[in-house]
């Protein structure tokens, strides 16, 4: 569950939680495509597999939308988003049906970025930058 995302699924009264993605501990190239769901109102709560993702996101952004669906965006397949492993996919999960569908936008957000549902229904995603993806800034400098 390292670097995974966790969200209380709507409606909150159902007390269902989803864990999305994550990866190995520390410097690890492992990342998980899984989603896992737990129902705390069950007699003996336990995690079960939810729909699988195509690429395993660390640091996924999870936003609950106005229609009680969950928007999953961004994330990175490597620890701390070192270069260009940003996940350019977005999905919507519907807790009522248990189904997930791919959305069009390609948003590259990786290490510890965020997303928030705005009052007018738009979602803002922000932050995140690969440590070494920007080649212009990683070239050794030349002193004159």
């Amino acid at each position, binding site marked *: *569950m390292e*670097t995974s995302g966790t969200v209380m699924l709507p409606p909150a*009264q159902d*007390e269902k939680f989803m864990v999305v993605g*994550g990866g190995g*501990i*520390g410097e690890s190239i492992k990342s998980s495509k899984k989603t896992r769901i*737990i129902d705390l109102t069950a007699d003996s709560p336990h995690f079960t597999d939810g729909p699988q993702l195509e690429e395993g996101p660390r640091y996924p952004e999870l936003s609950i939308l106005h229609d009680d669906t969950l928007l999953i965006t961004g994330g990175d397949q490597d620890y701390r988003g070192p270069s260009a492993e940003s996940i350019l996919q977005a999905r919507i999960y519907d807790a009522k049906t248990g189904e997930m569908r791919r959305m069009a936008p390609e948003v590259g957000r990786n290490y510890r970025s965020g997303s928030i549902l705005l009052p007018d229904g738009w979602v803002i995603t922000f932050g995140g930058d690969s440590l070494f993806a920007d080649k212009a800034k990683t070239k050794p400098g030349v002193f004159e």
Partner: protein
Amino acid sequence: MYGIANKLGLDKKDFQGIHDAYEFDPRTEKFTKVAPMNEARWYPTLTRLSDGRVLALSGLDDIGQVVPGKSEIYDSKTRTWTYSGKVRQFPTYPAVFHCPTAPSSTPAPTLATAPTTSAAPRASVGSPPTSSPSCPAWTTQA
């Protein structure tokens, strides 16, 4: 020309948590410093309780070790932090939620957590615990 700088790299640094706490006012977009936390915490998990208080858990202390289980609660009326009185060690970055049916006035709120294992050395404390209103004790879920 001559210069000295710390080595740049991906190596883990010795994290140093600090005690500082601020309130943010979205209208004025200003931060106001409030009373410091009892514990220094790098990356604490903050959870808003239903009565408006805020619970601080986990984080790395001023020498980079995971805070050993002491949690504290911020009260915006007094702008001070008080230990919750409950001690339970969480790994770094626990994801913590206030259970919808939990009573709000108790000093130790009912929480559900799905913590990550630790990103910091020697910080892992075992399996993720979960507590539900119908099951007030902390239990580990598969």
